[in-house]
C-alpha cells in the first residue's frame, strides 16, 4: 500500500546515485585543478586584452552551463508532465538553483571582464543581456515553485512555465541580438569556433567538463536531500491525517 505514495521508495535511484556521486566529485576536482592550472599558466594571454582575458575560462563555461541547466530543466519538466515520473519533478526542481547560480556566475565574471575593457562594470552587450534575462527566467521559475503549499501543484505549474520559457529562450536571444546590433556593436567575446587557438580551447573544454561534473555531483546531492525531505513530509501528513 505504501507504494502508492509519490516518491515512496526510489531505492534504485538512491543506490545508483550513491555509486555515481563520488566519481562525479572526483572528476570535478581533478578537471577543475587541471583546468585552472591550464587557464592560468599554459594558456597564452590575449594579445589585446592581456591577462584579464583569462576570466573567459570561467565565464564561457558558466554561460554554457546556464543554458545547459535550463535545457535539462525543460526536458525534465516535459518528462514529468508527460510520463508523470516523480524523479523528473525532483530533478527539475533541484536543477533550477544550480542553473541560476551558474547564470549569476556568468554575469559576475562577464562584468569583471568588462571592467578593464570598457572601464565600467556593466555593458549592455548582447551575450550579457541574454544571460541576464535567463537569470530572470530562473528566478521566475523558482518563485513559482515556492508559491504553492501543495508540492504537486507547484511541480506542475513550474513544469509548464519551464517549457514556455524554453520555447522563448531562442526568441529572446534573437531579439536581444537584433537590439544589440542597433545600439551597440561591441562584444566581449566572439566565439567563432574555427578561429580559436587550441591552447585556449583545451582549458576551456576542461573547465566545461569540470562544471558539468560539479553539476552532476550537486544535482545528486540535492535530489537525495529532496527525497529525504519528501519522506519527512509524508510522515508529517500521516501524523495529521492519521492515514
Amino acid at each position, binding site marked *: 500500500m505504501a507504494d502508492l505514495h509519490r516518491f515512496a521508495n526510489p531505492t534504485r535511484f538512491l543506490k545508483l546515485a550513491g555509486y555515481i556521486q563520488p566519481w562525479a566529485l572526483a572528476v570535478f576536482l581533478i578537471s577543475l585543478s587541471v583546468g585552472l592550472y591550464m587557464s592560468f599558466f599554459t594558456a597564452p594571454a590575449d594579445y589585446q586584452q592581456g591577462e584579464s582575458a583569462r576570466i573567459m575560462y570561467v565565464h564561457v563555461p558558466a554561460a554554457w552551463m546556464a543554458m545547459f541547466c535550463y535545457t535539462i530543466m525543460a526536458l525534465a519538466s516535459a518528462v514529468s*508532465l508527460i510520463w508523470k515520473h516523480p524523479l523528473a519533478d525532483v530533478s527539475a526542481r533541484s536543477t533550477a538553483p544550480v542553473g541560476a547560480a551558474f547564470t549569476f556566475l556568468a554575469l559576475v565574471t562577464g562584468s569583471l571582464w568588462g571592467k578593464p575593457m570598457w572601464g565600467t562594470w556593466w555593458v549592455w552587450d548582447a551575450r550579457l543581456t541574454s544571460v541576464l*534575462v535567463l537569470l*530572470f*527566467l530562473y*528566478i*521566475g521559475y523558482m*518563485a*513559482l515553485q515556492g*508559491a*504553492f*503549499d501543495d508540492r504537486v*501543484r507547484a511541480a*506542475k*505549474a*513550474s513544469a*509548464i*512555465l519551464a*517549457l*514556455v*520559457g524554453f*520555447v*522563448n529562450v531562442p*526568441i*529572446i536571444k*534573437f*531579439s*536581444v541580438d*537584433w*537590439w544589440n546590433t*542597433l545600439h551597440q556593436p561591441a562584444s566581449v567575446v566572439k566565439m567563432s569556433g574555427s578561429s580559436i587557438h587550441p591552447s585556449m580551447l583545451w582549458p576551456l573544454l576542461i573547465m566545461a567538463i569540470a562544471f558539468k561534473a560539479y553539476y552532476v555531483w550537486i544535482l545528486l546531492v540535492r535530489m537525495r536531500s529532496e527525497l529525504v525531505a519528501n519522506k519527512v513530509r509524508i510522515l508529517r501528513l500521516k501524523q495529521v491525517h492519521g492515514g
Partner: protein
Amino acid sequence: MKQFAFLVRRDLSLAFRQGMDSLMVVAFFVIAVVLFPLGVGPEPGTLARISSGVIWVAALLSAMLSLERLFQTDYEDGSLELLALSSLPMEVTVLAKVTAHWITTGLPLIIAAPVLAVLMQMETEGFVILIVALLLGTPSLSLIGAVGAALILGSRRGGVLLSLLVLPLYIPILIFGVSAVDGAIGGYEFKAQLLILSGFFIGSLALTPWAGAAGLRQALE
C-alpha cells in the same frame, strides 16, 4: 464558434458593468508615462528620444497588471470549474477570455497611446507606426500573459509573481515594438520589425492557448 462569441460577450458585459477595470488600466498607463517627464526633465529632445520606449514599457506594465484578474474571479467563484465542464474545449475558453481581455484593456491602451505620444513630444512620423505596432504587439501580450495568469491561480503571491513570470517573456515584443517606431521616426527600416511582431502574434496565438489550458487544468485539480 457561436459558443466562443457567447463567452466573449459574457466577459465583455461583465467588464463593462464592473466598469472601472478598463479605465483603471488606461489611468495607470497614462500616469506611468507622465512620471517620465517628471523624472528625467521636460527637455523636448530627451523626451522625444525616449518616447517610444517609455510608451511601450508602460503598455507592457499596464497589460501585465490587468492580467492578474483574468482568471482569478472565475477561479474563486467556481465559474472556472463550470467552464471546464462546458462544451467548450479549455483552449477555446482561454482564447475567448483573452479576446475579451484584449478588447477591454489592449484596445483602450492603443486609443490612449497617441495622446501620450504628444505628451512625450514624439515626432509625428512615429504615430501611425506606434499604433500599428501596438495593434500587432498587445494581443501577444495578452496571450502570453494568460499563461502566467493561469499558472499563478491559487498561489500565495499573485501579482508580483505574475510580473516575474511574464515580463521576461515580453522582452522580444518590447524590443521590436520600440524598434519599429524608432525606425519610422528616424527614416529607417520598420517593415521587418512589424513583420516580426506579426510573427510573434501568430506564434503565440498558436501556442499559448495550449499552455494556458494546461495551466488552468492543473489549477482546477
